[in-house]
């Protein structure tokens, strides 16, 4: 286990972009998880004497319309945004792995059915499906997570099904089948180990886009409700004070951007390692 981890880390660090992404990500995680805990930042403390103060030594990111410290709100809100991206991408991945493997291994009618479900879900333009789900079930964070997971899952289903089909038609699987291997044996012995790299890369690439979708719904006010801090929700607050207080919009967005960038760098590097013929 430890040696696999070491090997994986070595591969990541060999690619310049994925190394930069990993370092950026670790720095960000440290900032979001450690700083609020050690410095006792309070994202809810209202101070009417310091409304919409620009960045200063006391409030390095400035304050918002209720005098709350934006540095505290951005850092504390970060964990919620990250968890949202992480949970929705992971749920989509689990759905994709289950349905993709079932479709690829079973073939026939089941395969056709799974493929059509994925295609129909892909026929909804980007965020519309998530928007519809949240609109109907009501605005709160768990519905946002459900909506985003469902709208991201068809990509996982499609890619994993494709990967499984390739493996199923390879000679070693045909050989194993000829020797009388059962389906469960094929799945555990050949399919899961061989699709794992694809699944991991896909997961890394879709955490940031799930994070953006979830933040976008929060930005529209359809997710977390005030006063809970979350990056998208912070931007929603900020949009009414653009003309007087740029810092309320600048810092939450900057953090989304850095997070997404670090995941994309890591994912890009991983993609290139797994497929050397791929150009960017």
């Amino acid at each position, binding site marked *: 286990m430890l040696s696999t981890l070491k090997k994986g880390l070595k591969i990541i660090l060999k690619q310049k972009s994925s190394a930069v992404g990993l370092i950026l990500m670790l720095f960000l995680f440290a900032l979001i998880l450690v700083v609020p805990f050690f410095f006792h930042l309070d994202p809810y403390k209202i101070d009417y004497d310091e409304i919409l103060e620009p960045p200063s030594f006391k409030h390095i990111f400035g304050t918002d319309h209720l005098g709350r410290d934006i540095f505290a709100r951005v850092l504390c809100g970060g964990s919620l945004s990250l968890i949202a991206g992480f949970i929705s991408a992971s749920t989509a991945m689990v759905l994709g792995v289950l349905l993709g493997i079932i479709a690829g291994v079973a073939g026939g009618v089941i395969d056709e059915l799974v493929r059509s479900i994925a295609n*129909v879900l892909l026929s909804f333009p980007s965020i519309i499906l998530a928007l519809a789900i949240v609109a109907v079930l009501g605005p709160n964070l768990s519905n946002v997570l459900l909506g985003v997971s469902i709208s991201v899952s068809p990509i996982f289903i499609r890619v994993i099904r494709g990967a499984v089909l390739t493996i199923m038609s390879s000679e070693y699987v045909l050989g194993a089948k000829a020797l009388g291997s059962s389906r469960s044996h094929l799945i555990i012995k050949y399919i899961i180990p061989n699709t794992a790299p694809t699944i991991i890369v896909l997961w890394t690439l879709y955490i940031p886009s799930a994070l953006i979708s979830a933040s976008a719904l929060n930005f529209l006010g359809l997710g977390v409700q005030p006063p809970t801090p979350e990056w998208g929700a912070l931007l929603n607050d900020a949009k009414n004070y653009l003309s007087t207080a740029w810092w309320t919009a600048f810092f939450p*967005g*900057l953090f989304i951007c850095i997070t997404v960038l670090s995941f994309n760098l890591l994912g890009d590097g991983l993609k290139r390692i797994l497929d050397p013929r791929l150009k960017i």
Partner: protein
Amino acid sequence: MSMLGKILLVLKKFITFFLTFVAAITVIFIIMHSIPGDPILYMFETTTLTKEQIEALRALYGFNKPLYQQYLDTLYNFLSFNFGRSTRGFSVLDLILTRLPYTVELAIFGLLWGIVIGLPVGIISAFKQETLYDYSLYTLTLLFISVPVFWSGLLLIIIFAINLGWFPPSHATSPNSVILPSLTLGLAFSGELARVTRSSIIDILELDYVKLAHAKGLPFHQIALKHVLRNALIPITTLCGMRFGALLAGVPIVETIFAWPGIGSLVYEAILARDIPLVQGCIIFMVFWFILINSLVDISYYYLNPKLKAKVLF
């Protein structure tokens, strides 16, 4: 491709389009019928209504019929382009059609910005591959892909509308109102387009006929234009077509930020007003557009690509 092949291709795409549309209506029907509790209580302020009025509303929206009947009605109505009425009594299709020109305008300008920024970036990084230009442009495109539109939109408003005062910050009040929202969309698209352009040009640069053209001593600009760019255009146009379809379907977030009166902001307003018939109509209209454009792009792809022309698709 023979004449028969062409007809078969279009027919096959049409059938796929129709089936996808029916399936999409089904998905929307399922979502809309998972409203927790009574849909009439959800949609209307029912405290002022009498019991008879509530029953009348229930009958009006067909909620008193059995579920399969409601499903068949929904399917029939949408397939015959009868989008019904919003809770305020307006025709849903009329509401959509008054908003459509704005969404089309935004989509065209968004696509143009994406091409104007993304294409040169992709071309330069492909011809200068593995140089400092390439690496810095790569970082730039990655940045464009990573920036969420709801942040870049706000930043553009702060810089160009509030500080510089060049463009109005929101609403479609003057002819230059479209610049900032379309630039927001264009920036996001340009990163993606630049990458596809780069990789498709690099693929072609490695082919033998390009090497031969170099060996023949043809001037660089001639090779670049005639041999490389013309052949790299296929994946680029496909991407543009698909993105145009997505833009035409409406972009709720950007339209909301800029208070742009398109279909995207219509669906957002409908959600806030809990106007389920309007939400449903808008989303089905968006999906219709989106899959229609994608089918057309698919068909044109077979015409554009000489390699696929030779094959009949069955």
